[in-house]
């Protein structure tokens, strides 16, 4: 057992403060995420990772468990502010402004940068109200019902729920709940959508539908996607960021290993570590 552990540790450890070659964005950048350090209390979760999210593209985050990809994703709409011990050192430039500027209220950031979570988390209210929640929050004046139906259709759940929109969102199965949550997140057409392993609870067909949705969404918006599924990354991500875990200093600190166009990361990676990871030699 220790044999296996040692091998993984060896491949994961970079001696010294490795810093990834900066990724040169090919188009306009919506979120320029420049992490110096992210701490939870004394625990340094992520260090030195510059991850620009390009407009109208899907940016994928891959990497072993505990590498901080979710942490970075959640730092991009200040979700981590809910964690009391969280401390962000760096800059997240959204369009022209740093979202960590003291004058910026995190509530406003989250209105523009929506999020889909790993576990389905519908509200204790009807399916319709779940999807209309964001519209009402944003004081949407147009045809609410039309937007709700549209969101449910795009999230590939309309056929499952069209006859029971008044039922509680919690009466659905796990996979249906997740698609409902995706509908809820896209109903307000957020400028950027952060998705944290959105398909991990879905069957292959629903997964494909959600992947198609991501590709469709990037026409008008921007998507950042954390995934454990490498095929998913190759299918939908235009750009991929690979993160690793640094255990050389006793802790487990995540950092960016390599970021590039997805094809390049998977077919001709710059780093040996990336090559081993995409080949599935450790996880």
């Amino acid at each position, binding site marked *: 057992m220790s044999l296996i552990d040692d091998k993984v540790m060896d491949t994961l450890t970079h001696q010294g403060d490795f810093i990834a070659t900066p990724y040169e964005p090919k188009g306009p950048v919506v979120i320029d995420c420049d992490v110096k350090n992210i701490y939870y209390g004394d625990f340094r979760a992520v260090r030195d990772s510059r991850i620009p999210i390009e407009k109208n593209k899907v940016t994928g985050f891959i990497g072993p468990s505990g590498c901080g990809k979710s942490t970075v994703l959640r730092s991009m709409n200040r*979700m981590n502010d*809910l964690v009391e011990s969280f401390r962000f050192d760096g800059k997240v430039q959204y369009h022209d402004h740093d979202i960590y500027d003291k004058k910026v209220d995190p509530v406003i950031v989250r209105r523009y940068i929506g999020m889909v979570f790993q*576990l389905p*988390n519908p*509200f204790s209210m009807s399916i319709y109200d779940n999807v209309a929640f964001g519209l009402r929050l944003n004081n949407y004046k147009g045809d609410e019902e039309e937007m709700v139906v549209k969101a449910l259709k795009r999230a590939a759940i309309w056929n499952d729920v069209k006859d029971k929109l008044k039922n*509680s*969102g919690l009466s659905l199965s796990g996979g249906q709940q997740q698609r409902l949550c995706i509908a809820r997140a896209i109903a307000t057409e957020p400028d950027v959508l952060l998705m944290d392993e959105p398909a991990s609870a879905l069957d292959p067909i629903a997964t494909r539908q959600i992947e198609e949705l991501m590709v469709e969404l990037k026409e008008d918006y921007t998507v950042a996607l954390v995934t454990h599924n490498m095929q998913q990354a190759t299918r939908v991500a235009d750009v991929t960021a690979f993160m690793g875990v640094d255990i050389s200093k006793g802790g487990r600190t995540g950092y960016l290993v390599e970021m590039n166009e997805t094809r390049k990361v998977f077919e001709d990676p710059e780093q040996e570590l990336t090559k081993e990871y995409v080949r599935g030699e450790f996880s």
Partner: protein
Amino acid sequence: MIFDPFKASASDKTLSMPPSQADFLRDSAFRYLAYFGALSIVLLVAYIVFELGVQALPAIQTHGFGFITGTTWNASEEEFGVLPEIWGTLYSSLIALIIGGTFGVGIAIFLTQGFVHAKMEVTFRTIIELLAAIPSVVYGLWGIYVLIPMLVPVAQWLHETLGWFPLFSTELGGPGLAPAALVLAIMVLPTVAAISTDAFRRIPYKVKEAAYGMGATKWEVILKVMLPTASSGILAGLVLGFGRALGETMALAMLIGNVNNISLSLFDPANTLASLLASTFPEAGQIEIQALMYAALVLLAITLVVNLLGLAVQQYTMRKFEGKK
């Protein structure tokens, strides 16, 4: 011997064993113990109702339904009616529930939604739980010596300025509905607060996360997401609190004035069923005791109906919000 047809053919290496005879014995012993415990509670309740019924039977036969609609209680004339007591019981409990419930739910929100630091939260919680530990007589005394003198000028002012409003239409001359309901509210509060706090705490973190993730403000998160999610638990707390208020005896007997009176005014003296029982019982003759038993039966019926109604509302919210059958 335990029937296990699999051991022989299963892999030799397996460590799996059937549970022993003793394991099964313990299992069924515990089951029967649990059945016995549950059954004895049902039997106890049935016995209490039956015994009350037997004692009250003569009064039920003599007064019939008129007992419930009658408004005078006069032992020497053998004239018994509990409508004022029913009114007083429900009215005082309702006011107490409105005040105590509002504060109780407010406290639950304050304690669970990140307004106070975890250490402060424990302190607050302990203090509120302490309220439940104060004996009802002490509340009664506090009401007589502190609350009523404090209330009299306030009531006077309310009556003079807003006297046209039915709730303030009379003057407070000592004991009355207002001090009784306020003390009841304080007694109801810990129950509502504790159960609502648990209801809020049971909401999974991911729900809160989802609400904040939508870009909701703290107020929107609490009002639009957390409250509906916790509603069935809060309702349970309110029903329990209301039940407590209905049956509360000592503090009410000391504060409500014990006057058979049906009035909307908060400052009029009134009476409740429990308080009638407590204050009349010691000197009651046989006929009056039978009437008191009838009154006890009425109180029991009210409590039962309130609990059933509460349960129905709770089931409805669970179905509506949580999709449970």
